[in-house]
C-alpha cells in the first residue's frame, strides 16, 4: 500500500492505495460514478477526467500519479455540465447517454483551450470520444449552440 494526497473536485483528500490501481477504479471507489469504464484500451474516452485541468484517460493512468495533483470529474463540474447537457438534449445528441460524462469533460476542456473552434478543430479535439448512438452530427449542432451561447454570456 502507498499513501497519496491530492485535490479531488477542489477538496483536499488522502488515501491509501495499491500501487497498481488505475485512476478509473480509484475514482469510482471514491463515489465518482460519472467516470465510466468503456474500452479500457484508451480508445473510447468514456473515462475522461481532468488532471491539473487537462483531460486524460483514467483507465490508463495509475492512481499513484495523482499524488500532489488536482483531479476533476464531472461531479465537480455540475453547473457547466448541466448547461451543456441542455443543448445536447435539445439537439438529440444523446441516446443511451453512457458516453456523456467523458464527452462533457472533454468538451469543457476544449472550450477552455480553443477559442471559437471550427468544425475541424472540434472533430479533431473530440476524436478520442466515441459515441455509438448519435452519429456525431447532433453533437456538433449542440456544441456550436453551446459555444455561441457561452460566448454571448462571456462577452
Amino acid at each position: 500500500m502507498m499513501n497519496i494526497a491530492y485535490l479531488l473536485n477542489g477538496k483536499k483528500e488522502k488515501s491509501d492505495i495499491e500501487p497498481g490501481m488505475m485512476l478509473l477504479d480509484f475514482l469510482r471507489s471514491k463515489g465518482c460514478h460519472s467516470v465510466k469504464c468503456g474500452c479500457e484500451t484508451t480508445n473510447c474516452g468514456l473515462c475522461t477526467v481532468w488532471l491539473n485541468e487537462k483531460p486524460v484517460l483514467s483507465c490508463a493512468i495509475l492512481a499513484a500519479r495523482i499524488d500532489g495533483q488536482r483531479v476533476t470529474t464531472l461531479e465537480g463540474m455540475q453547473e457547466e455540465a448541466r448547461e451543456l447537457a441542455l443543448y445536447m438534449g435539445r439537439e438529440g445528441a444523446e441516446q443511451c447517454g453512457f458516453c456523456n460524462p467523458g464527452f462533457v469533460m472533454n468538451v469543457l476542456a476544449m472550450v477552455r483551450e480553443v477559442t471559437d473552434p471550427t468544425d475541424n478543430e472540434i472533430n479533431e479535439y473530440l476524436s478520442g470520444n466515441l459515441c455509438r448512438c448519435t452519429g456525431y452530427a447532433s453533437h456538433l449542432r449542440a456544441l456550436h449552440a453551446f459555444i455561441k451561447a457561452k460566448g454571448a454570456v462571456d462577452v
Partner: protein
Amino acid sequence: MQIAQYTKAQSLTEAWELHQKRHSVILGGCCWLRLSPQRMIQHAIDLSALGLDTIEETDGEFRIGAMTSLRSLEVSAALECCTDGALKEALRHIVGVQFRNMATIGGSICGRFGFSDVITLLLALDADVVLYKGGRMKLEAFAATGAGTDVLTHVILSKAGRGTAYASLRLNATDFPIIACAVSGSAEAVRCAIGARPSRAVVLRAVRQDAAAQGPAKMARQWADAVSYGSNMRGSAEYRRDMAEVLCRRLLERVMGADV
C-alpha cells in the same frame, strides 16, 4: 496488472540506481501499461517529480524533457515552426487529445514501437537522445539498441535549416498507421524514415544533388524498394510498399520544392 513497489524518484541518480535492479520499469505516460504482457512489475519508477516535462529552446536546438507530453509538443508554436508543421501532423492522429496529454516523448521512444509516428519523424529529423549515464547519442543508434538499464532524460532536436514533411496512412482516424513516412532535407542531404512497416522505422539517405538529379518519383521508388515490409490485419506487405513509395514521392516534392 500488479505493481509490487512504486517509487516517485527524487533525483536522476535515485532513478538510475533503482533501474539497475531486475524487473524494474521506468514509467512514461503509462498509456499502454495495462495492455503490456508484463502483469507483475516488481518496481515501478516514476520520473514525474524530476522536472523532465519542459521544452527548452536555445539558439541552435530544442532540448525536450523525456516526460514532456505529446500534446505539449503538438501545441508548441516554436516546434511547429521549426518542423514546418510536420511534428503537429505526426502527433495529431495519435488516439485523442486525452491520450496525448498522458503519453510522453520518452515513453514513445523507449517503447520503440513499430507503429510509432514519433520515432518515424524524429529519425528523419536526425534527433539525438540524452541518457543519464550514456550521455548524448543519435536516436538512430538508440532505436536499434534501447535504453537497457540507463535512463533517457532528454531528446534534442537541432534547428539546423531544413525542410520537413510527414505523412501517414490510416484505415480510420486515431488508428495505428498502416505506413508512416517522414522526409527532411538540408542543403546537402535528404533523409527519409519509413515506419509502421509494421516493424520499427528505418532511415534512408541521399545526397541532395543526387536526389534532385533523380527526381522524386525515382528516388521514392528506390527508397521504397530498399526497405522490407510485413503483413498484418491492417495491410499487406505489398500494399505497404506501394503506399510508402507514394508517400515518399509526395514528401520529397514538398521538401525539395524548386529543386525538382
